[in-house]
Protein backbone atom coordinates (compact mmCIF):
# COMPACT_ATOMS: atom_id res chain seq x y z
CA UNK A 1 0.00 0.00 0.00
CA UNK A 2 2.68 2.48 1.03
CA UNK A 3 4.84 1.59 -1.96
CA UNK A 4 1.79 2.02 -4.21
CA UNK A 5 1.20 5.50 -2.84
CA UNK A 6 4.85 6.38 -3.38
CA UNK A 7 4.50 5.44 -7.05
CA UNK A 8 1.29 7.49 -7.29
CA UNK A 9 3.23 10.42 -5.88
CA UNK A 10 5.82 9.86 -8.61
CA UNK A 11 3.01 9.82 -11.17
CA UNK A 12 1.86 13.20 -9.92
CA UNK A 13 5.43 14.48 -10.00
CA UNK A 14 5.79 13.33 -13.61
CA UNK A 15 3.18 15.83 -14.76
CA UNK A 16 1.01 13.17 -16.40
CA UNK A 17 -1.66 14.14 -13.87
CA UNK A 18 -2.01 17.38 -11.99
CA UNK A 19 -3.21 15.80 -8.73
CA UNK A 20 -4.57 12.58 -7.29
CA UNK A 21 -6.59 11.64 -4.23
CA UNK A 22 -7.77 8.41 -2.68
CA UNK A 23 -11.53 7.97 -3.04
CA UNK A 24 -14.05 5.18 -2.79
CA UNK A 25 -14.15 2.59 -0.05
CA UNK A 26 -10.46 2.93 0.78
CA UNK A 27 -10.99 6.64 1.49
CA UNK A 28 -13.95 5.85 3.73
CA UNK A 29 -11.56 3.61 5.58
CA UNK A 30 -9.72 6.71 6.85
CA UNK A 31 -12.91 7.95 8.53
CA UNK A 32 -14.70 4.79 9.65
CA UNK A 33 -13.82 1.63 11.48
CA UNK A 34 -14.49 -1.45 9.38
CA UNK A 35 -14.52 -1.33 5.61
CA UNK A 36 -13.69 -4.24 3.38
CA UNK A 37 -12.49 -3.40 -0.09
CA UNK A 38 -10.42 -5.09 -2.66
CA UNK A 39 -8.93 -2.13 -4.45
CA UNK A 40 -7.55 1.35 -4.07
CA UNK A 41 -9.43 3.94 -6.12
CA UNK A 42 -7.08 6.74 -7.12
CA UNK A 43 -9.05 9.61 -8.64
CA UNK A 44 -6.83 11.73 -10.85
CA UNK A 45 -7.08 15.19 -12.30
CA UNK A 46 -5.86 15.00 -15.87
CA UNK A 47 -3.96 17.85 -17.44
CA UNK A 48 -6.56 18.19 -20.20
CA UNK A 49 -9.70 20.31 -19.72
CA UNK A 50 -12.97 18.64 -18.76
CA UNK A 51 -14.80 17.29 -21.79
CA UNK A 52 -11.63 16.80 -23.84
CA UNK A 53 -10.95 13.42 -25.43
CA UNK A 54 -8.36 11.73 -23.22
CA UNK A 55 -6.70 8.37 -22.73
CA UNK A 56 -5.24 6.71 -19.66
CA UNK A 57 -2.63 4.84 -21.70
CA UNK A 58 0.29 7.17 -20.78
CA UNK A 59 -0.60 6.76 -17.08
CA UNK A 60 -0.83 2.98 -17.41
CA UNK A 61 2.49 2.91 -19.28
CA UNK A 62 4.12 4.97 -16.50
CA UNK A 63 2.80 2.58 -13.86
CA UNK A 64 3.73 -0.54 -15.85
CA UNK A 65 7.27 0.78 -16.14
CA UNK A 66 7.26 0.69 -12.34
CA UNK A 67 6.10 -2.88 -12.12
CA UNK A 68 2.32 -2.67 -12.49
CA UNK A 69 0.58 -5.58 -14.18
CA UNK A 70 -3.02 -5.81 -15.32
CA UNK A 71 -5.27 -8.02 -13.18
CA UNK A 72 -8.91 -8.23 -14.18
CA UNK A 73 -10.08 -4.61 -14.45
CA UNK A 74 -7.33 -3.36 -12.12
CA UNK A 75 -3.65 -2.72 -12.03
CA UNK A 76 -1.68 -4.79 -9.56
CA UNK A 77 0.93 -2.36 -8.27
CA UNK A 78 3.37 -2.98 -5.45
CA UNK A 79 1.03 -5.39 -3.68
CA UNK A 80 -2.15 -3.36 -4.10
CA UNK A 81 -5.00 -3.62 -6.57
CA UNK A 82 -5.20 -0.14 -8.01
CA UNK A 83 -7.93 1.52 -10.04
CA UNK A 84 -7.02 4.81 -11.67
CA UNK A 85 -10.20 6.80 -12.28
CA UNK A 86 -10.20 10.19 -13.99
CA UNK A 87 -12.19 12.83 -12.13
CA UNK A 88 -15.25 12.86 -14.34
CA UNK A 89 -17.47 15.73 -13.22
CA UNK A 90 -17.34 18.97 -11.24
CA UNK A 91 -18.00 17.15 -7.96
CA UNK A 92 -15.18 14.61 -8.32
CA UNK A 93 -12.82 17.32 -9.61
CA UNK A 94 -13.60 19.39 -6.52
CA UNK A 95 -13.18 16.33 -4.28
CA UNK A 96 -9.69 15.72 -5.65
CA UNK A 97 -8.82 19.40 -5.54
CA UNK A 98 -9.84 19.77 -1.90
CA UNK A 99 -8.59 16.39 -0.68
CA UNK A 100 -6.72 16.52 2.61
CA UNK A 101 -3.15 15.37 3.18
CA UNK A 102 -2.73 12.16 5.16
CA UNK A 103 0.27 10.09 6.10
CA UNK A 104 0.21 6.36 5.53
CA UNK A 105 3.20 4.88 7.28
CA UNK A 106 5.83 7.40 6.30
CA UNK A 107 4.30 8.31 2.95
CA UNK A 108 2.27 11.41 2.30
CA UNK A 109 -0.89 11.08 0.28
CA UNK A 110 -4.26 12.76 -0.10
CA UNK A 111 -7.69 11.49 0.85
CA UNK A 112 -11.00 12.96 -0.25
CA UNK A 113 -12.83 14.84 2.49
CA UNK A 114 -15.57 12.83 4.13
CA UNK A 115 -18.17 15.39 3.03
CA UNK A 116 -17.20 14.81 -0.61
CA UNK A 117 -17.30 11.04 -0.10
CA UNK A 118 -20.85 11.41 1.19
CA UNK A 119 -21.90 13.58 -1.77
CA UNK A 120 -20.30 11.24 -4.33
CA UNK A 121 -21.92 8.20 -2.69
CA UNK A 122 -25.29 9.95 -2.74
CA UNK A 123 -24.93 10.85 -6.41
CA UNK A 124 -23.79 7.32 -7.36
CA UNK A 125 -26.69 5.91 -5.40
CA UNK A 126 -26.14 2.14 -5.42
CA UNK A 127 -27.02 0.00 -2.43
CA UNK A 128 -23.39 -0.16 -1.33
CA UNK A 129 -23.18 3.63 -1.56
CA UNK A 130 -26.15 4.03 0.76
CA UNK A 131 -24.51 1.60 3.18
CA UNK A 132 -21.34 3.70 3.01
CA UNK A 133 -23.32 6.87 3.74
CA UNK A 134 -24.86 5.25 6.80
CA UNK A 135 -21.48 4.03 8.02
CA UNK A 136 -19.81 7.42 7.58
CA UNK A 137 -22.65 9.28 9.25
CA UNK A 138 -22.37 6.97 12.22
CA UNK A 139 -18.63 6.96 12.60
CA UNK A 140 -17.00 9.92 10.85
CA UNK A 141 -16.55 13.45 12.08
CA UNK A 142 -18.66 15.22 9.44
CA UNK A 143 -18.67 19.01 9.11
CA UNK A 144 -22.40 19.77 8.63
CA UNK A 145 -21.79 23.24 7.20
CA UNK A 146 -19.33 21.96 4.60
CA UNK A 147 -21.61 19.05 3.75
CA UNK A 148 -24.66 21.27 3.30
CA UNK A 149 -22.64 23.61 1.10
CA UNK A 150 -21.37 20.79 -1.13
CA UNK A 151 -24.84 19.26 -1.43
CA UNK A 152 -26.37 22.62 -2.30
CA UNK A 153 -23.74 23.60 -4.88
CA UNK A 154 -23.96 20.24 -6.66
CA UNK A 155 -27.73 20.02 -6.68
CA UNK A 156 -27.90 17.15 -4.21
CA UNK A 157 -29.74 18.75 -1.28
CA UNK A 158 -33.15 17.54 -2.39
CA UNK A 159 -31.90 13.98 -2.89
CA UNK A 160 -30.24 14.07 0.53
CA UNK A 161 -33.42 15.27 2.17
CA UNK A 162 -35.53 12.76 0.23
CA UNK A 163 -33.54 10.00 1.92
CA UNK A 164 -34.17 11.72 5.24
CA UNK A 165 -30.46 11.95 5.97
CA UNK A 166 -29.14 14.34 8.60
CA UNK A 167 -26.56 17.02 7.80
CA UNK A 168 -25.61 17.63 11.39
Amino acid at each position, binding site marked *: *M*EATLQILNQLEGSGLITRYAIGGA*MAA*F*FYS*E*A*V*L*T*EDLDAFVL*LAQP*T*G*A*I*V*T*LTPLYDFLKQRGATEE*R*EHLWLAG*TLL*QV*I*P*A*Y*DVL*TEEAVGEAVP*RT*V*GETCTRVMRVEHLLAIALRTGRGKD*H*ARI*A*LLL*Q*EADVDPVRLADILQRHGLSEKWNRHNLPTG
Partner: protein
Amino acid sequence: MKGTALQLAEDIFRRKDASRRLAAALPIEEKLGRLVVMQVRANEVRRLAGRPAIRVWELPSSMRRP
Protein backbone atom coordinates in the same frame (compact mmCIF):
# COMPACT_ATOMS: atom_id res chain seq x y z
CA MET B 1 -9.60 3.46 -24.78
CA LYS B 2 -10.09 7.10 -25.63
CA GLY B 3 -13.01 9.24 -24.56
CA THR B 4 -14.01 11.99 -22.21
CA ALA B 5 -13.13 11.56 -18.54
CA LEU B 6 -16.79 10.75 -17.90
CA GLN B 7 -16.84 8.06 -20.58
CA LEU B 8 -13.62 6.52 -19.24
CA ALA B 9 -14.94 6.56 -15.67
CA GLU B 10 -18.26 5.01 -16.72
CA ASP B 11 -16.37 2.25 -18.52
CA ILE B 12 -14.27 1.59 -15.41
CA PHE B 13 -17.38 1.44 -13.20
CA ARG B 14 -19.11 -0.90 -15.69
CA ARG B 15 -16.16 -3.29 -15.57
CA LYS B 16 -16.01 -3.11 -11.78
CA ASP B 17 -19.72 -3.92 -11.53
CA ALA B 18 -19.32 -6.84 -13.93
CA SER B 19 -16.42 -8.12 -11.85
CA ARG B 20 -18.54 -7.93 -8.70
CA ARG B 21 -21.35 -9.89 -10.35
CA LEU B 22 -18.86 -12.57 -11.36
CA ALA B 23 -17.48 -12.62 -7.84
CA ALA B 24 -20.98 -13.07 -6.45
CA ALA B 25 -21.27 -16.34 -8.38
CA LEU B 26 -17.99 -17.79 -7.09
CA PRO B 27 -17.97 -20.85 -4.80
CA ILE B 28 -18.15 -19.97 -1.13
CA GLU B 29 -14.60 -21.25 -0.54
CA GLU B 30 -13.30 -18.76 -3.11
CA LYS B 31 -15.38 -15.96 -1.58
CA LEU B 32 -14.01 -16.71 1.87
CA GLY B 33 -10.49 -16.72 0.46
CA ARG B 34 -11.06 -13.28 -1.06
CA LEU B 35 -12.54 -12.05 2.21
CA VAL B 36 -9.40 -13.04 4.05
CA VAL B 37 -7.19 -11.35 1.43
CA MET B 38 -9.28 -8.18 1.67
CA GLN B 39 -9.06 -8.24 5.44
CA VAL B 40 -5.30 -8.68 5.36
CA ARG B 41 -5.04 -5.64 3.06
CA ALA B 42 -7.46 -3.63 5.18
CA ASN B 43 -5.48 -4.40 8.30
CA GLU B 44 -2.29 -3.35 6.57
CA VAL B 45 -3.81 0.06 5.88
CA ARG B 46 -5.12 0.28 9.44
CA ARG B 47 -1.67 -0.48 10.77
CA LEU B 48 -0.03 2.09 8.49
CA ALA B 49 -2.63 4.66 9.54
CA GLY B 50 -1.82 3.94 13.18
CA ARG B 51 -5.02 2.05 14.00
CA PRO B 52 -5.36 -1.44 15.52
CA ALA B 53 -6.10 -4.42 13.30
CA ILE B 54 -9.54 -6.02 13.12
CA ARG B 55 -9.75 -9.80 12.96
CA VAL B 56 -12.13 -11.43 10.51
CA TRP B 57 -14.16 -12.99 13.32
CA GLU B 58 -14.66 -9.54 14.84
CA LEU B 59 -16.23 -8.11 11.69
CA PRO B 60 -19.90 -8.91 12.41
CA SER B 61 -19.83 -6.85 15.58
CA SER B 62 -17.78 -4.03 14.12
CA MET B 63 -19.71 -3.57 10.88
CA ARG B 64 -22.70 -1.43 11.70
CA ARG B 65 -25.77 -1.43 9.54
CA PRO B 66 -28.17 1.46 8.94
